[in-house]
């Protein structure tokens, strides 16, 4: 009986939603829910400053859209898919949230996008890395905006193999993101004539990496690749330095490093490390100008995720404005039809699988001599064009891709 009742109410409710969704903004409010790690390992790459970036975008947009007010709610994901799912469920079902922004840990994102699909709402993923988010886990209800593991592998791993690093040891964080990155890297290494001779999967988080560094040293590999993130990566790099990994002729490749990680390591420890990034604050006039404003508000330079949150929120609000609707599918379609040209991307494009493709950059951490201040950290080695950087649609396993 209760099940019948539930089914009926859901049916009626969804019928009403479809009816009212055509071209208006529900409740005369556009409500954005910001979900990110606000206190744990991934706090600094998105976190409270990501919320600032989101609020900057809303303020720059003017605070209202077609007369409707824009509201923001936020929550700490605690890197926990279960508690995050209940937060987002509450947002979508009881609090009329129209769009979920932020979205950092890949495991959280994959859980949340399923809910977004059930409720036909929209999510814009800025923090997560797993490329599976727009591959086997794609939904018509989310967009993956800043970067993913495919260009990370494609940028850094390709460059390192081409410089002669043929035999690889991969140290992987043992969860969705690490596995995705390990898979993408292995593919790139093998395609370019290299070989992965050993992988070790460490629990997340780990503070002592000496045991793994020793395994890497004794493996005889040319390259030791770190398929992890945040303090796991900085801890591993520090330990590699202490155990003289690079002095003994091995190359250290960090596959995902954020500006905040490099800042924490300092140029002394991090110099020479090659990394792939979706954006850097010191690329050009426009990025510098925006990052100066961000720094005024937060005291730090923005990561690519902060910039992506600002840019994607702007794109979202523009799409709501243009269509006069906050219906997920209407807005998503409008966003797909509009090329992205702003401080974040040039000719960025949202594909049918939800992947926003844009140019990526292969960067190298500056030496202490080159670095002029604490945030002057990268020199850009090469721009990786968008269509070369991301997984081509022809290889996609996403059910939304028309060829599938």
């Amino acid at each position, binding site marked *: 009986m209760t099940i019948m009742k539930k089914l009926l109410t859901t049916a009626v409710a969804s019928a009403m939603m479809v009816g009212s969704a055509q071209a208006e903004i529900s409740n005369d409010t556009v409500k954005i829910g910001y979900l990110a790690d606000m*206190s*744990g*390992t991934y*706090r*600094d790459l998105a976190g409270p400053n990501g919320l600032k970036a989101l609020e900057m975008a809303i303020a720059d947009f003017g605070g209202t859209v077609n007369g409707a007010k824009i509201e923001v709610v936020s929550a700490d994901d605690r890197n926990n898919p279960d508690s995050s799912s209940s937060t987002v469920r509450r947002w979508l079902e009881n609090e009329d949230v129209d769009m979920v922004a932020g979205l950092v840990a890949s495991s959280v994102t994959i859980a949340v996008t399923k809910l977004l699909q059930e409720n036909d709402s929209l999510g814009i993923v800025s923090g997560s890395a797993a490329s599976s988010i727009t591959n086997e886990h794609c939904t018509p209800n989310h967009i993956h905006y800043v970067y993913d593991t495919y260009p990370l592998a494609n940028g850094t791993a390709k460059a390192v193999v081409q410089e002669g690093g043929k035999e690889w040891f991969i140290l992987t964080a*043992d969860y969705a993101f690490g596995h995705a990155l390990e898979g993408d890297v292995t593919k790139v290494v093998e395609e370019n004539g290299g070989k992965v001779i050993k992988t*070790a*999967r*460490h*629990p997340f*988080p*780990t*503070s*002592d990496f*000496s*045991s*793994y560094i*020793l*395994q890497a*040293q*004794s493996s005889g590999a040319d390259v030791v690749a770190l398929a992890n993130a*945040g*303090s796991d990566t*900085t*801890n591993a790099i*520090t*330990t590699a330095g*202490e*155990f*003289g990994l690079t002095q*003994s002729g091995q190359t250290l490749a960090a596959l995902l490093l954020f500006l*905040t*990680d490099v*800042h*924490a*390591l*300092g140029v*002394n*420890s991090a110099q020479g490390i090659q990394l792939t990034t979706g954006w850097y604050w010191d690329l050009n006039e426009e990025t510098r100008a925006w990052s100066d404003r961000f720094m005024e508000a937060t005291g*730090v330079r923005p990561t690519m995720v902060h910039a992506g949150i600002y840019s994607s929120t702007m794109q979202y609000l523009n799409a709501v404005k243009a269509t006069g609707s906050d219906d997920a599918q209407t807005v998503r379609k409008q966003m797909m039809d509009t090329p992205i040209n702003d401080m974040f991307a040039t000719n960025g494009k949202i594909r049918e699988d939800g992947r926003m493709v844009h140019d990526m950059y292969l960067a190298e951490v500056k030496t202490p001599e080159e670095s002029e201040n604490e945030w002057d950290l990268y020199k850009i080695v090469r721009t990786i064009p968008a269509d070369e950087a991301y997984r081509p649609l022809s290889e996609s396993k996403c059910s939304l891709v028309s060829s599938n």
Partner: protein
Amino acid sequence: MTMILGVPVAVLFGQLLLGIINGAFYALLSLGLAVIFGLLKIINFAHGAMYMMGAMATVIMFDALGINYWVALFVAPVIVGCFGMLIEYFLLRRIAGQDHIYSLLLTFGVALMIQGILTNIYGVSGMRYSMPDLFQGGFKLDFMYLPYYRAWVIFMALVVCFGTWFMIEKTKLGAYLRAGTEDAQLMQGFGINVPLLISLTYGFGVMLAAFAGVLAAPIYSVNPVMGSNILIVVFAVVVIGGMGSIAGAIITGLLMGVIEGLTKTFYPEFSSAVIFLVMVIVLLIRPSGLFGKEA
């Protein structure tokens, strides 16, 4: 080359040595917990936060005042130890004699607050701290490269562990301490200031945690959440060793370091769980822990 289960013996030696080094950290941290529990019956969930404060104090003192590692090695534990005594005096004293769960919840709350405040100020990415120049480089052993600093860690940890054990079990001060917590009224009658003794004991336990924090500063990412990651493991070590057993905490710490190190070599995915597996087995067979006195 001789192999054991597909791993060269030389590599295995290296892993054993690293296990002992990590075990020395566990020993140092669980020692403080064991002192606090054994003598004061307080379950100190703020221990991880105190370890973190030791490391953070080292970095902050260096950044702000240029205080070097050697000075920090003494000063940081003293500062954090004094902070611990304040917590004892203003908070823990008020719940003395209550069930253990009160001290557990109180110290857990304190830890979360300290961690939250520092996260707000410093973020979680970690702070830079360079290795003292003296420790740059390492020994080239046959089977591995041993950085000087790791050798220093194991040396210092063992000295402090042994010193603490000796002081509590073999000296007059230790006897006062043990007697004071056993029968406070009688000791008061002998003219011993028991409340001060309790404050000092808590402060000393906290100092041990902060000392481990200073040792960790040059090799681990120093950030406000570093203590919460290690705390649960250290508690497991104390439980395995036998709550309150000082020698038990030290020996079990070293043992667990080695077991964890070997797991990292043969089955890394399981390395964060192996200590808890040992804990379950030990509790089933010896509920009071390996070295615990029967309750």
